[in-house]
Every structure is written in structure tokens, then in C-alpha cells.
């Protein structure tokens, strides 16, 4: 059905796809697995015409095709559901579905016949949505259905799904897989991009494994197992457990009481959450992404307007609700954000200028005349301390942060946040998009910070990471704390069940 031959794609200095060969047979569910940054999405975006390959060719039904835009791909019967949905939120479901393939003539848009066609498709594939509802009112799961309908409406014979389960709970995943099987029965071909091995084994017929932009394995699902896939993905045996001594727990640093957080659209994202984090322990928060973790951490870090928060955030007995990010930092709270490009770094600024973010306004960085001027010596000193201690490469403080690899950018952020000797560290997705060597380093640093008496609140989408690092584990579902488990004894099934069902 679809074949990629020798596809190569470069983004600046990064080789995202290196002579990638992928063969997808018609009528199968084909999984493409790999870690974050392995090049899975890039390859599929090339197949869908979103990117153009630097070299290589694409074959559809055995013929070489020139796919320059999604328009070309759609004409060849290819549909794609992106990880971040491609929907125009202000428009209705029907308008979104027909966009680019409108029924009726050039002079008149026929939304009525579109709506009836959509209803028919929804029934056929059990994808219930109301065609006349604006997309902004839909839940994430419903939006995904709209995306699927969009592809089906265009008579896609091949559906490419990029991390479709990232936004679903395990129960929803089951329903979703049923839909995929139904599609396969109807003769459709499905490509599913994922890094979750259990899902690969549950749904796919064949698997292509990618690592560092290359294809490193092609296997039949029946003939493989999780261990083999993991080894292929990572390139060596996966180290599952972090060695760490028992926690020496001190007094409570952070106390959260009945905290609720509303987003800017007025939706409650964190709902009546209470917990505490004591010095010397790592409290993990596990959950499917998008269940309120982001809002929770941002609220604790002082990045959410007080008006959107109810309940109490107390730190060392002091109420933080009305205090801004700067005051919270001064009190000893550090924060490693989940998205280092969006929150963590000033990409155009030098490493030195990034190293002082958050402490730039007070001595020793700001000096003279009532701390107005930046003391360049102090700035450079701080930067080189961080660069050395956290092995940031290349060790050149004058480079812009943009020039660093993801792992080194992350090390710079972690170094900066450690440098203030925090009493409480809020850390989100500390190893996302980071190479293996750096992951182990970052994990060891987190444990040593804990052993020095810091209280750590850790959010991670990687269940293995969060269970192996945490001393206590909270499970969040739909903005609620669904339960607390002891990560040393709890099984993944137990945790998964809490992640699914909530209370």
C-alpha cells in the first residue's frame, strides 16, 4: 500500500530521517515505534506531504508518487490524524470535516448533504458526533473522532495515526482499538505511531522500529515481544530501576489543600486536590497526559493567575496563593518545566544569560546602584559553574541556547534550578526527548537532590520513570487524585486501573 524508500530529511543540523525504508502492506495495522525524537512522526509527515523529503521516494500502490502537499496525499487515499489535532475550533464539526473537500459547487457550500454523509459514516464506524456542534465544545475524545471522520470522508484507504492514544485513558484506548479493527475489516490500512509497547502488541500486525532517525528493525507482531522491541528501540537492555537508598523524610514543605485550577476557557482542569510533599522525598504524579498535571504544576509555580485558583497552596506554613513566581522562587521553590522550549529557555539568549534567569535581578548577579546593573563576572561565573557541574556541551557560555541538543538544554535548565539549592523542586517530564546517557545522569541528580533534603514533586508521562524514582506515587485522573500507591509494591496493572477509572 505504502512504501518509503531511502527517505532522508534534515532540519538544520539535525538528521531527522536517515535513509528510512518502511513497507506497509494493504489491509494491515502497522505500528511504527521508537522513542521520542526517533523520527517516526517526521517519516509519516513526509508520507502525508506535510514535509518534503530531502531525498528518497514514496510509493503508493507500487507506483512512485510525488507527494508535495497533504492535498496530493489525500488524492492518493492517504489520511492522517496528527498528535495535535488539526481542527479549526471556531467552526462546526461538519465544516471541519468537509474543509478542503467541500460538497456542492464552487458557488454554494452544501453543508446539509455533508451532514447526512457524516451521520452515515459515524454509524458505519461507530464514531458518534453531532455534525452541527462547534469543535471548541467537544471533548478530546470526540475531537479525535472528528479527525477520523475527516479522513474517512475523504475516502482515505490508508490512515496514519500519530500517537492516537496519548490523549485517551486505557478504557478509551480499548474502544479506540475496536474502531481500528473495524476499519481493518472494511479493508482499510492503518499506520499507528506510538512509543507504547503494550499497545503495539495488542493492535498491530507488523512493526517497524526506529531509533535516531533510522529504521532499526522490522518484525511481525506475532513473532516478537516487549523485551525485544524495547531492546530495538533503545539500542541496549533497558534499565528499569533507579538505584536509590530509602528516603529520609523530614517535615512537610508543600501542603496543597482542596486545590482547583480553571483554565483560561473556564474549564476546571484540577479538581479539589490535596496532598503534601515532605523534605527528602520524591512524590510522583502519574497519569495520562492532559489530566491536569500541567495546570497543577503551573499553579504551584505561580504561573497561573490567582483568580483561576481556589483552595490553598502552603509552603513551609506560608500561604502562596497570591504570590507570584518571583516570590515563590525567593522562598526556595525551583521548577523544571515540562516544555523547555516554551517555558524553560530563552532560545536566542546565550547560555550565560539563560543561566541567570530567575536570579537576574538580585545580588550577586545584579549589583551596583541598588542592584540595577548586571555584574558580568558574576554572570559568567554562575554559567561556568552550571556548565561544568552538569556537563553541558559544548561548554561555551556565549553560544545561544538554540545551538544545544535537547539533552544539553535540559541539563542547563536542571543546573540552573539546582544552583539555587531549592527546598522544593517542581519537575515535569525531566527526560523528555533526552538521550539515554543524559537520562541516567538526570535521574541520579534528582535522587541526590532528594538525599540532600529537598522535597521533590515529579510529574512524568513515562510510567516507568515515575514509579522507579518516586517514594510515594499519586495517580491523577481528570483533574482528581485517583489514589496513592507505594511504588515499590504497586503493580503497573494497579496503577493503570487508577489512571483509567479515577475513584
Amino acid at each position, binding site marked *: 500500500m505504502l512504501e518509503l524508500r*531511502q527517505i532522508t530529511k534534515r532540519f538544520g543540523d539535525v538528521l531527522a530521517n536517515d535513509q528510512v525504508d518502511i513497507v506497509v502492506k494493504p489491509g494491515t495495522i502497522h505500528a511504527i515505534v521508537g522513542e521520542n525524537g526517533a523520527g517516526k512522526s517526521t517519516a509519516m509527515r513526509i508520507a502525508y506531504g506535510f514535509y518534503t523529503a530531502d*531525498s*528518497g*521516494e514514496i510509493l503508493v500502490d507500487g507506483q512512485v508518487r*510525488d507527494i508535495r502537499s497533504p492535498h496530493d496525499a489525500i488524492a492518493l487515499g492517504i489520511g492522517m490524524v496528527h498528535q495535535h489535532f488539526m481542527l479549526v475550533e471556531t467552526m462546526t464539526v461538519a465544516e471541519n470535516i468537509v474543509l478542503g473537500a467541500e460538497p456542492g459547487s464552487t458557488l454554494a457550500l452544501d453543508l446539509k448533504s455533508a451532514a447526512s454523509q457524516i451521520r452515515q459514516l459515524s454509524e458505519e464506524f461507530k464514531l458518534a458526533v453531532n455534525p452541527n456542534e462547534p469543535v471548541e465544545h467537544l471533548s478530546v475524545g470526540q475531537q479525535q473522532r472528528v479527525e477520523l471522520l475527516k479522513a474517512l470522508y475523504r475516502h482515505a484507504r490508508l490512515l496514519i495515526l500519530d500517537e492516537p492514544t496519548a490523549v485517551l485513558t486505557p478504557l478509551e484506548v480499548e474502544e479506540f482499538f475496536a474502531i481500528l479493527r473495524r476499519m481493518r475489516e472494511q479493508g482499510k490500512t492503518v499506520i499507528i505511531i506510538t512509543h507504547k509497547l503494550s499497545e503495539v502488541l495488542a493492535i498491530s500486525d507488523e512493526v517497524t522500529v526506529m531509533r535516531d532517525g533510522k529504521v532499526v528493525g522490522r518484525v511481525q507482531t506475532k513473532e516478537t515481544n516487549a523485551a525485544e522491541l524495547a531492546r530495538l528501540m533503545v539500542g541496549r537492555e533497558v534499565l528499569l530501576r533507579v538505584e536509590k537508598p530509602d528516603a529520609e523524610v523530614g517535615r512537610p514543605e508543600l501542603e496543597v489543600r482542596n486545590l482547583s485550577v480553571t483554565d483560561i476557557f473556564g474549564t476546571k482542569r484540577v479538581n479539589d486536590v490535596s496532598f503534601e510533599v515532605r523534605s527528602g522525598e520524591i512524590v510522583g504524579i502519574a497519569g495520562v497526559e492532559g489530566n491536569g498535571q500541567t495546570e497543577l504544576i503551573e499553579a504551584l*509555580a*505561580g*504561573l497561573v493567575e490567582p483568580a483561576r485558583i481556589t483552595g490553598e497552596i502552603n509552603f513551609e506554613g506560608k500561604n502562596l496563593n497570591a504570590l*507570584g*513566581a*518571583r*516570590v*515563590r*522562587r525567593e522562598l526556595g521553590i525551583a*521548577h523544571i*518545566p515540562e516544555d523547555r522550549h*516554551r*517555558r*524553560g*529557555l*530563552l*532560545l*536566542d*539568549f546565550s547560555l550565560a*544569560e539563560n543561566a*541567570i*534567569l*530567575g536570579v*537576574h*535581578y538580585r545580588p550577586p*548577579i*545584579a549589583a551596583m546602584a541598588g*542592584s*540595577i*546593573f*548586571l555584574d558580568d563576572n558574576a554572570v559568567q561565573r554562575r554559567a561556568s559553574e552550571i556548565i561544568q557541574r552538569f556537563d553541558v556541551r559544548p561548554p561555551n557560555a556565549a553560544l545561544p541556547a538554540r545551538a544545544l541538543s535537547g539533552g544539553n538544554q535540559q541539563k542547563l535548565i536542571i543546573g540552573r534550578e539546582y544552583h539555587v539549592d531549592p527546598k522544593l523542586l517542581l519537575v515535569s517530564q525531566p527526560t523528555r526527548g533526552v538521550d539515554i546517557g543524559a537520562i541516567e545522569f538526570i535521574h541520579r541528580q534528582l535522587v541526590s537532590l532528594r538525599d540532600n533534603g529537598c522535597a521533590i514533586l515529579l510529574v512524568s508521562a513515562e510510567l516507568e520513570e515515575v514509579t522507579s524514582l518516586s517514594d510515594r506515587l499519586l495517580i491523577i485522573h481528570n483533574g482528581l487524585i485517583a489514589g496513592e500507591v507505594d511504588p515499590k509494591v504497586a503493580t503497573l496493572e494497579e496503577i493503570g486501573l487508577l489512571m483509567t477509572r479515577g475513584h
Partner: protein
Amino acid sequence: MPKLARDLLFPLIAVVAAFIVGGILILLVGDNPIEAYRLLLGSAVSWPDGIGYTLFHATPLIFTGLAVLVGFRCGLFNIGAEGQLYIAAFATAWVGITFANLSSWLLIPFCFAAAILSGAFWGAIPGVLKARFGSHEVINTIMLNFIAVALVSYFTQYHYKVPGDPILQTAPIGAGAHIARLGKFVPGFPERIPLNVAFLLALLCCLLVYVFLWRTKWGYEIRATGSNPFAAEYGGISIRKQIVLAMAVSGALAGMVGINEVLGYRYRYYDGFSDNYGFTGIAVALLGRNHPVGVILAALLFAALQHGGIYVDGFSEHVTKDIVQVLQGIIILFVAAEAFFKWLVGRRQRVIGTQHVNLENPVIVSKEI
């Protein structure tokens, strides 16, 4: 290529390209481009008039260029320098008229303060609107330009005009508010040329803006906000404050045009005095790559053109001084479309690249071409 050369090269290409396009236009209307450009640029280097007037015209452009620069560095587009400088010039004149009897020692600082504070105030309005309501500063500064022009024209016409004066201008300011023309200190430089100490103030402001943006914590916060507001917020910086602060500083800089105009040149407020200084400031900041030194160089170029425009008008058969504005517009277009030149260059590189790939991997050629 060293960084400095790269920073200079691109604006230079844009200027040369604009002159070429302008030259073609001059040819099309049947004139000699070389002759026109000789008049346009040659007149700027004559002593004392050419140099004196070029520096005089450069003064407001340095101020507005810096104003736009400070906005840009905070991620804001201040198209409102025009309005800010009108408000400020009027306020300067108002102080100069109202307190005309004060001694120079008091009156000049008062007038300076009036220019700076009123400019800052008018600049801060769109800042506050953005910080508080999220409304776009581009639209608001455009609207405030018109409001400013109408407002000062009202006050001039109805309250501060000398009765019977056919020109829309205020009464003169007190003599104590005049600032010295450079002819006073420079031997052989006539005092009739209005170049005054405001020019030195403009140069000083370039230094101050540099120190402010790159050497103080406030500048760091402004630039951090401009570079990535989310990261700035994360670093404990209040974005709202930075937006208001940057717009106020920007407005203050634009407002200093009033010092040059009112205290150093006309000694009164003259309605509609600005020769698009605020908008040319955008060109100055962009061509100067948003750096104070670049602003000086770009302001000198545009000032020289402005001065030369008069000679073109007088001595050229078909070409009028409008060529100056045409060149300005083309320069900004080229500077804005930096990608255009990269595209020109990139085209060639890609061809080379294809040939290179061609040798190694023949399959690809058909796809690339």
C-alpha cells in the same frame, strides 16, 4: 564570516538593492540615476550646510529609531512614535510658554521633563491596553497617532495660537527655554543651521539605551519578554510590567524629538511639523538591526537622503524629492523580506546540492528537479 561583518552586510545589500530599484524607476521617468543620486547623496557631505542639516535631520530619526528599537526588543511594534512625538512636542511648548519667565536653569529641565514624561505617558497607554486587555499594540498605536494629532491640533487652534496668526502654531516659548545651537561652540559653523545640542542628547541616548538593554536587570527583563514571554514569566518576570515599561521608555525616546523641534529649532509648537519621523523610525530601527549603533548609521543615511531631496527637487528635471520616500519604502521592504536574499542565495546552493547528491544517489535527481 565574523558576526559584525554579517550584521553590516545584509543592511548594506538591502540599501544597494533599493538604490538599484530606485535607479530603474528614475530611468523609467527619463532621468539619469547617477546624476540624481549624486544630487541626493553628494549634497550631504558639503561643509557646513550639508553636514549640518544631515545631522539635524538625523536627530529626530535617532530618537524615533531608538523608540522603535526598544519596543521591538520587548516583542512590541510601536508604530505610535509619530503620535508620541506630537504629544511630547506640544507638552514641551506648553511648559515653555506657561513658565516662560523662569530662568533657563529651571525651565530647560522642566521642558525636558515635559517632553520625556508626556511621550512616556502617551506610549504607556497602548502598553497598558495590551497588558490589561491584551489588545494589539499595532492597532492601538495607529489609532493613538490620529488621536494625538487631533488633540494637539485642537489645543493649538483653540487655546495657544497667537490671535490672527494664519499659521497653525503656538505662541513662542520663553527665551529661557532655548537650547544652544552647535554654531555656538563649533568655530566656522553658522548658527543659522538648526543643529543643536539635542543631537548630542540623541547620541547620549544611544549609549544609554545600550546600557539599559544589555547591562541592567530591567533591560534583561525587557529582552527576555521579547524573546520568549513564557520563559520570562517562568523566570519570575512580570510580562505585563515589561510591556508597559518598554512602551513608556519607547514613548519617552520618541518624545525627545520635541526637545530638538521645540527647544532647539522652531522655539514654538508648529502643527504638523513631523516629516513622518515616527514611521521613518521603523525603517531606521530595522535597517539598524535593532542595535543603537545601527540606528545612528541608518538615521544618518535617511537624514542625508532627506536633505538631498531638496536639491533633487531643485536641480533635477523629472525627479522630485519623493524619490526619498520611495527609496525608504523599498529599503524597508527589502529589510523585511530578508528571506528574499536568502532565497536568491539558497537557490544557487540548492542547485549545487542537487549536483552533489546526483553523484552519489542518481535516484533522487528526478525528484529534486
